[in-house]
Every structure is written in structure tokens, then in C-alpha cells.
């Protein structure tokens, strides 16, 4: 149905027709699925992260943006049913045996989680946690790996890194811990770092520091970055390309500058209008997107955004618009796209 993902340069991660469903209502051994509900977390997503690219995936909670990447890493709950294909450097990740997947996860393909407060093991010193990744994946000795860890901590801007190596996670602030998480994701010189809302748990000034760190890392190491966020403002400064997701599908994909200045999909446009601006101080009320996203347990008829869309027509309510290319750099899934 959907167009092939935009191919821009060599693919690092290529996702084709990925579907994720959850069947609920099933219990332990011997119990039948009674009144089981099937929830479509990801209806169908195709996208590509090219070598050295920084891509942002934006969407509301429940749009399936995290699910896409958790599926790629094999981190979904056991009741998930996954379809489609995820290829990393040409290798199919879906259905790969755990041992082979463990060689890729954390070394060539790593992840930075949302909450740095809880993502570090509490009883192990920072330096050891960092070094362990390299010992595990690169067969380095502890001495080499600890030198590498110190180097990486300095690189991500942890002051007094030598002393911090001996600290426990609870002795560091949230921003410092997120720097440690980023350092950890970089220990084995990965091809792609997936950052799942890396700044949502941090305050605004620290958020800006972490984003500029991610930008620097991409410039210095040439690592691809996939940034998952619900905040267009966060991704505006760092992403080259933005993919907007709604209800488990990609609705628009375009170069960041273009997407922010001239969105084609009504949803993208409304998202941008929702961001409060400092320049327009005479706001009586916060602009917001009325209505609710569709229930993922219900079958999909027509465009998922139609009930909330100011431009919706009868056509939208009956026929789902396919994701079609506008030019070689952008795609949109809308019957009535906004004028550029």
C-alpha cells in the first residue's frame, strides 16, 4: 500500500512495512483468549535512517513511535506480534536469534533511554558500567576499557571525569546521568544511536545541553542518530529530516526545515501551531489539538486523523490516503494536503 521509504544515501537502518499488534486477554497455560482485544500499536511503518543522518520521529503518545524502534531492537513484550522487515546494515533483525542480536545491540546499534534516573544499574560504579560494554562487545581488557570509558566521559562533557568514574549513579544529577547514558551508547562506536525521548525527564536548560551534545557527536563521529520525541521544538535544532507519525502510521516525512516552515499534512501543521511562541505574548488560551487519537483496538476506516482534521471531507472518512511522494525528499499521506 505505502510507498517505499525515501532512500537517501546508504541505508543504515531500513524498516519496511513494520506492523506491531498486541493480543490482550490471554492468560497463562490452558486459558483461552476470551474477549481478547487486538491492539494495533504500529499499523504500518516504512522508514529509513541513512548513514550519518540525523532523523527525528515525532508523534503524540501512543502514535507508535517508540514501538517501531523497540521492535527493531527486539525489546517488545512477548505478546507482541510483529510483521514486516527491519534490516540493519543489510541484516534482517526480526527473527534473528538472541545471541546474534546481542552482538549487535549495544555495539553497532545502541539506545539511549528516556529516563536516566532509572536506566543505570544502581549498585555498579559509573566507570565499571561504561567499561563493561566494551569488555563485553569488543573483547577489550578491563584496563583498556576503563581508559576508553574515561575518554568517553570527557568527550560527553562530564566534568572531573576521573572522579566520576568512581561514583555510583545516585551520586550524579539527571543531566550528568544522561551524559553517562550517551557515553555508554557510544562505547563501541555504533553505526546508529536511537535516542528515545532523551530529554523528556530533564529540565529545559539541561535539555538544550544534551541536544547540542548529540549534535556534536554526530558531527565528530559520523554516527547516525534516530531521535524519538513528542516535541517538535526539541527536534527542530538537531534533525535533518523529520518523520511525523499518527496512529501507527507515517503521515509526513520531509527535510526538517521544509517540514517546519511549510508542512503539508494538516496534522503536522496543527502540531506546529500548538507550540507556544515567546513572540506572540497575547495568548488568551493555549492553542491545542482538539479531540483524541483513534482507539488502536478499533479497525481503521479512512484517514485516522479525519475526526480531528479541519480539512476532512467524506473522501477522508472512507478512503485512507496512501503515503505518496511529493518530490524526491518528501512524502505525505493526505487527500487534501496544504499548499506548500
Amino acid at each position, binding site marked *: 500500500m505505502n510507498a517505499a521509504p525515501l532512500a537517501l544515501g546508504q541505508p543504515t537502518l531500513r524498516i519496511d512495512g513494520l506492523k506491531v499488534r498486541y493480543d490482550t486477554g490471554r492468560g*497463562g497455560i490452558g486459558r483461552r483468549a476470551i474477549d481478547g482485544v487486538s491492539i494495533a500499536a504500529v499499523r504500518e511503518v516504512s522508514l529509513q535512517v541513512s548513514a550519518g543522518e540525523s532523523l527525528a520521529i515525532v508523534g503524540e503518545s501512543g502514535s507508535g513511535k517508540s514501538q517501531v524502534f523497540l521492535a527493531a531492537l527486539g525489546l517488545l513484550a*512477548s505478546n507482541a506480534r510483529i510483521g514486516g522487515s527491519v534490516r540493519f546494515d543489510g541484516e534482517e533483525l526480526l527473527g534473528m536469534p538472541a545471541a546474534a542480536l*546481542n552482538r549487535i545491540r549495544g555495539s553497532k546499534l545502541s539506545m539511549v533511554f528516556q*529516563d536516566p534516573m532509572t*536506566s543505570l544499574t544502581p549498585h555498579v560504579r559509573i566507570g565499571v558500567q561504561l567499561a563493561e560494554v566494551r569488555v*563485553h562487545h569488543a573483547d577489550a581488557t578491563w584496563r583498556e576499557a576503563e581508559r576508553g570509558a574515561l575518554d568517553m566521559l570527557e568527550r560527553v562533557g562530564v566534568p572531573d571525569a576521573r572522579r566520576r568514574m568512581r561514583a555510583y549513579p545516585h551520586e550524579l544529577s539527571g543531566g550528568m546521568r544522561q551524559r553517562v547514558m550517551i557515553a555508554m551508547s557510544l562505547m563501541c562506536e555504533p553505526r546508529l544511536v536511537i535516542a528515545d525521548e532523551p530529554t523528556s525527564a530533564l529540565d529545559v536548560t539541561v535539555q538544550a545541553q544534551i541536544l547540542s551534545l548529540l549534535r556534536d557527536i554526530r558531527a565528530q563521529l559520523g554516527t547516525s542518530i534516530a531521535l524519538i520525541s513528542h516535541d517538535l521544538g526539541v527536534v527542530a535544532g538537531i534533525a535533518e529530516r523529520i518523520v511525523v507519525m499518527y496512529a501507527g502510521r507515517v503521515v509526513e516525512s520531509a527535510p526538517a526545515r521544509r517540514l517546519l516552515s511549510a508542512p503539508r499534512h494538516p496534522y503536522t501543521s496543527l502540531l506546529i501551531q500548538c507550540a507556544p511562541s515567546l513572540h506572540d505574548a497575547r495568548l488568551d488560551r493555549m492553542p491545542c489539538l482538539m479531540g483524541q487519537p483513534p482507539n488502536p483496538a478499533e479497525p481503521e476506516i479512512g484517514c485516522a486523523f479525519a475526526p480531528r482534521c479541519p480539512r476532512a471531507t467524506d473522501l477522508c472518512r472512507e478512503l485512507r490516503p496512501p503515503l505518496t511522494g511529493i518530490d524526491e525528499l518528501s512524502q505525505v499521506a493526505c487527500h487534501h494536503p496544504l499548499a506548500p
Partner: protein
Amino acid sequence: MTATLWRGTVQRLRANPAAVAALAVIALLVVLALAAPVLNPNSIETLDWSQVATAPGLVHAHWFGTDRLGRDLFVRTFEGARTSMAVGLVAGAVSLTLGLGFGTIAGYLGGRADYLMMRIIEIVSGLPLVFFVIFLTVILGRSSYVLYTSLVAVSWLTMARIVRGQTLSIRRREFIEAAVASGGSPAHVIMRHIVPNVLGPVAVYATLMVPQIILFESFLSFLGLGTQEPHASLGTLVAEGAGELEAAPWILLAPGIFLALLLIALNVLGDGLRDAFDVREAG
């Protein structure tokens, strides 16, 4: 790596005066129990007909007095202490290891494996203990192995349940997910990230389990399935002393005080261990 965890734990334990005192008491009791045969030449089974049920004193050879058969209570108390401590230590350690392994694996794997493993626990705990011990005694003959096996068979079940509960409470925490996302195998995640984080509550339960095992052993001995005369355990000595409480309270006193001291010290130590296993207590 793991060595640093242990070093930190030992440091924190040493900073806790109550735990250090408890450790000192336990060490003293162990040394006393081991040195008793050297200190006093009496044998555990010699009957001294001239000194039946004598009160404690330093004027005669029986410092803790004698029981109603004229056997020396000093050597018998420490003989019983050795038996009880050995039972508690060995059965406790085996139960701990079994429970820790079984519980973390069940809790971490979840789903059907967990379901199956927990049903096994329920089936085993449904077996009546006494039947179990008699059954083993008939097959294997009476020996200390049977005693240990039956004690372990009972006490590891609760340990496994507690460990599984603790594992469930942390397996969905983000640092576990992060460890999996970094390419850690299940064995690595369990050994490195789950076991150290459940050790705190497990340490407390382990120190509560040892007294339970000691008491259980005395119950079995009372039924004639555990320690047999002329050998003694603290449990059998206390039971014997309780029967003579009005006429000869000292028969209860010596093993009773030893047992109480040991159990209190173990509990205080367990409390200290829980704090020591938590790196955030370092301050």
C-alpha cells in the same frame, strides 16, 4: 568488578556498630562451641552418678551443672551448639543458593517458564514434611544427609518465592531494559543486574531462615527423626530443659541463652547486611 561490590559492602557493614557487635557475638559463640571439648574434659555421654542434676558452679567439674542423668551440661550445650550451627549454616546456604537461582530465573523469564516453575514450588510445598522425612529415612537410612536434605527441601521454597517477587519488582525497571538493549544475555542480566539488587531483602530473609531451620531441626529431633541421643542439638536440649524447668532451671538456661544470643545476633546482622548491600546507604 564484583570484587568492588563486596569491598563496598564490607566497608558499609564495618561502619555499622550494631552489625559489628552481632558479628563479634556470632564469632565468639562459634569459637566457644569449637573450643569447648578442649576447655572441659567431660564427655557428652559419661554419666556422673554422684552429681545427678547438680546446679552450675565452679567448685566441681560441671560448670553448667548436669542433667537428670548426670551428664555434663557444659560439653552438651556446646555439642548442641555445633550441631545446630552446622545445620543452620549448611541447610541455610544450600536453600539460599537454590532459592536465589530458581527465583531469579522464574521471575526473569516470566510467562510459561515462571508459571511452570511456581507450580512446581506449590506442589513441593504441598507435600507434608513429616511424610517426606519418613519417606527419605526409609529409603536412605537415618543420616545427617537425610536431615539436611529434608530441611533444605522445606526452606528453599519460601526463599525462591521471595526472590521471585523481588525479581518481578525490578525486571521491568529501565536499567534491566537498558542492559538487554546493550546486548546482555539472560545469564549476564541475572547474575550482574538482578542478583545484586535482590541481595538486600534476601540477606534479611536468610538470617531469619537460619533460626527457623534450627527450630525445625529440633522439631524433627523431637519426633526421633533428627539428632539422636547421646548427641544433642540446641533444640533437643531446650526441649529437655523445659521439662525440668521447676526442679532444675539451669538445664534450660545454658542452651536457652546460647540459642537466644545466636538468633538475636543473626537478626541484627541481617538488618545490617540489608543496609550494607544498598550502595545508596554509603552517604
